[in-house]
C-alpha cells in the first residue's frame, strides 16, 4: 500500500472572478489521520490559502462538515484510510451557497434555527425555587433530539433542502421537536404555528438521508415524522373543537 493519498479539493475564490475548480494535493496516508488532518497538512505545508472551518477536532463543535466523495461527512472523525487508495474528492457541503473553497454560508440555517423558537416556553408564570422534576424516562423522551451539533450535514444530504431553500430543514425541525417533547416546555402551540406549514414538516417527503448521514444519531427524519403525527392530531382536534370555542 502506498503511503500517500491524493486529495482533490474544491477551490473557489470569488475575488478571482473564477469558477469553482478542483486542485489535487498529495498528503501522507497515516493510519491515525482523519480527513481533517490531511486538509491541515495541505494548509500548513502545501498551500496556506486553502479555506475551511474546523475547531474541536473531536466531533462535537460541528464545524468541519464537507462532502467527501459525494457524502456529507464530519471530516475530523473520518479516517483517511477509509478511502485508500484514493483519490478523495472533497467539496463544500451541498445545497449551501459557497463563500470560499470549502466554506459555506450558514446565515440562512441560523435564521431557521431561531425561527422554530428553540428555548423553553412557559405559558404560566411558574418560577420554581428548585428544579423542575423530570424523571429519567421524561428525559429519555427528548434526549436523542438534543444531541444535534448543528453540523448541517443533514441539509447537505436532503434533496428537498436543495430544491426548496425555504424548507426549514431536518436539524431545525428536530430541535423544535426536542423542545416540544421536553416535559418543562409549554411552547408546542407556538411551534406548530411555524413548523406545521408547507415549508416546515410538510415539505419533507421522507427521503430519510438526513438520518443516514447524521453523525450524532439524532435521527431528524424520525423527529419530522413524529411532528407530522402530532400536527395531524392537533389539526383534527382543532377541527372538531375549533380554537377559542371550547
Amino acid at each position, binding site marked *: 500500500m502506498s503511503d500517500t493519498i491524493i486529495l482533490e479539493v474544491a477551490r473557489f*475564490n*470569488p*475575488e478571482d472572478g473564477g469558477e469553482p475548480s478542483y486542485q489535487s494535493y498529495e498528503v501522507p496516508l497515516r493510519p*491515525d489521520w482523519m480527513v481533517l488532518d490531511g486538509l491541515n497538512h495541505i*494548509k*500548513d*505545508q502545501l*498551500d*496556506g*490559502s*486553502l*479555506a*475551511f*472551518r*474546523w*475547531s*474541536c*477536532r*473531536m*466531533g*462535537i*463543535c*460541528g*464545524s468541519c462538515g464537507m462532502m467527501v466523495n459525494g457524502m456529507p461527512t464530519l471530516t475530523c*472523525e473520518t479516517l483517511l484510510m477509509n478511502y485508500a487508495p484514493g483519490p478523495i474528492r472533497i467539496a463544500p457541503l451541498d445545497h449551501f451557497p459557497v*463563500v*470560499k*473553497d470549502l*466554506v459555506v*454560508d*450558514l446565515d440562512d440555517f*441560523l435564521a431557521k*434555527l*431561531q425561527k422554530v*423558537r*428553540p*428555548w*423553553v416556553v412557559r405559558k404560566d408564570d411558574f418560577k*420554581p425555587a*428548585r*428544579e*423542575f*422534576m*423530570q*424523571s*429519567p424516562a*421524561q*428525559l429519555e423522551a*427528548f*434526549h436523542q433530539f*438534543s*444531541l444535534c*451539533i*448543528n453540523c448541517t450535514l443533514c441539509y447537505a444530504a436532503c434533496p428537498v433542502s436543495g430544491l426548496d431553500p425555504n424548507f426549514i430543514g431536518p436539524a431545525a425541525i428536530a*430541535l423544535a421537536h426536542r*423542545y416540544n417533547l*421536553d416535559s*418543562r*416546555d409549554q411552547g408546542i402551540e407556538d411551534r406548530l404555528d411555524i413548523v406545521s406549514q408547507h415549508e416546515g414538516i410538510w415539505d419533507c417527503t421522507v427521503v430519510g438521508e438526513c438520518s443516514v448521514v447524521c453523525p450524532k444519531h439524532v435521527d431528524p427524519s424520525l423527529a419530522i415524522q413524529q411532528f407530522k403525527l402530532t400536527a395531524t392530531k392537533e389539526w383534527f382536534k382543532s377541527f372538531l373543537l375549533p380554537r377559542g370555542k371550547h
Partner: protein
Amino acid sequence: METSSHDILIIGGGGAGLRAAIEIAEQDPRIDVAMVSKVYPMRSHTVSAEGGAAGVAGKDDTIDEHCYDTISGSDWLGDQDAIEFFCNEIPKELLRLEHWGCPWSREPDGRIAVRPFGGMKKMRTWFAADKTGFHLLHTLFQTSLKFSTIVRYDETFATRLLVEDGAVRGVVAIELRTGKIRAIQAKAVIIATGGCGRVFPFTTNANICTGDGMALAYRAGAPLKDMEMVQYHPTGLPFTGILITEAARAEGGWLLNKDGYRFLQDYDLGKPTPTPVLRSMELGPRDRVSQAIFGEFEKGRAFHGPYGDYVHLDLRHLGEHKIETRLPMVRELCLKYENIDPVREPIPIRPVQHYMMGGVHTDIDAKTPLAGLFAAGEAACVSINGANRLGSNSLGEILVFGARAGRSAIEAVRNGSAANENAILAQARDEERRIEERFLRRTDGTEKITKLREEMQRAMEKGCGIYRERESLVESANKIGELRERAGNLAIDDHSRTFNTQLTAALELGYMLDVAEAIVHSALDREESRGAHQRRDFAKRNDQKYLAHSVAHRSAEGPPRIEYLPVVITRWPPGERVYGR
C-alpha cells in the same frame, strides 16, 4: 471603514459570553448589547467540556465544604472572597440552566443527579451524561435566541481594543466572510474569549483557543495574572490530545502502569479501594495525578508508544451498561480516535495541557484595571482557581462570572461618559492600516506561520511542562523573544479578503506569542512549587514570599514586568493539602 456602536460589546460567544449577554438582556431590555465571535457561538470551545459543573446540591453538603475543596485545591492561591461568592452563586446558576432547558442527568425520582469529581469531598458535580459543556453551550445559545436585543457579529474576529483616555471604547474586528474591517464602538467591553491551549503542542483545547482576548487586554494595558499556572489534565489520548473526562475516574476508573499496578498509592494519594473514595487515589486533584503519571514515566514503569510514554485508564470493571449510560462520549471517542472499546480494553492516556488558571486580571466584580473593560471565563483570572483548578469548577465559573461581568457592564454603561469619537476612529483606521500593510498586502515576508507556531509550541513544552526549572525556562523565554521578532516578517500567500484563514492564523500567532511570553516569564519569576507550578529547583511551597498572585504587565520592548498581589485570605488559613488520608 464601517462603524457601528452599541452600549455593551462582548468578545466571545462561549459559555461566559453568552451568559453575560443573556444577563444583560434580561436585566434591561433597553440596553443594546452586541456579541462578536470568531466562530458561530455554538462552536465555541465550551462545547467540548465533558464531565460536569460543580454546585452544592445535596442535603449533606455545604457551601463551606465546596469553598474548602476549591481553596485547598488551589493550593491556597485562590482568592477566598471570590471563591465564597462563587460557591454561593453556582447552585443558582445551574438551576437557572435547568429552567432554560439544559438536559441534566436525573435521579429516578426526577431530581438532578450529581457525581463525584476529583478533589471534591462530596458528590456535587451536575452533569448531562458526559456532554455537559455541549448541552450547557447549546442551552445558552438557544436561550439567547429568545432575546431580540442581542446583536450578533458571528465569524467576526476582534483584532484590537480601542482605548481612549484610559478607557476601553470598543474594538476593531474583521468580518471573516467579506474581509470587511469594522470599528465597533461600545461603552463597555467584556472579554470572554476563553483559553490559550494552542500555545502548547499537546493540548485538549480546540483550534480556536489561541488566547486572543488575553493578548488584546494585555496589549491595551490590562495585566495578566497567574499565567504560570497551567493545568495538565491526567488523561488525554496520546496522539490527538483529545480529553477523556475525569468523570471516567469519578465513575470508578483506575489508573494502571505497565505492570497493571494502581500507582497513585505511591504518590501520597491514599490506598486503593475497589470503589471510588472521594478526594483519594484516582479522585485526587489534577496537578497531583498528572505529576504522578509523569513520575511513572521517569521510573520507566509506563508503556512506550509512537507518541511518547503512556499509562492505562481502565474502565473494564465498570461494565458496558454504566459506560453506555454515564460515559457514552468516552466510548465514542475511544472507538473513533483510538480504535479501542473501553468496555473490553484499557485506554492509553498521558497528561495533556488543558486549562489556564491565569488570565486577564479582574476583581471579584469581573472588572479589569482598565475602565470599561471586563473579563470572564477562562480568559479571565478572578481568581477562584489559584494554582490548580478543580475539575468541574470552570463551567460554573463561566456562568457565575459571565453573569457578573454582564451586571458590572450595565453599571458602567449607566455611569458612562461620552467618548471622543474622532480619536477612537483614528485609532481604528490605524489598526486597519496595520492589518493591510503587515498582512494582507505583504509580499516580501519569509517566515512561515506554521514553522513559528511549531517552534513556539516546542519551546513552551520544554520550559513550561509539568516540571520546570530555571535553565529551560530561560531558554524558552529567549526563544519566545526571538520568535516575536521573526513574527514581524511573516510570509503570506493568501491576499484575498474573503474568509482569509491565513490572515487569522497570522494574527492568532501574534496573540499566542504575547501570551506565551507572559506565561514563561511568570513561571521564571515564581521560585517555589505550588499546585500546577512545580519547579525542580524550588521544590517547596514558599508562603512567605509567594502567597501572592503574579501580575504580568506588557512592556513595549523586552520582557514583561512581573509584580505580585497578595492573595485574599478570609476564613481558611494556608495549610497542607491532604488527599487520601
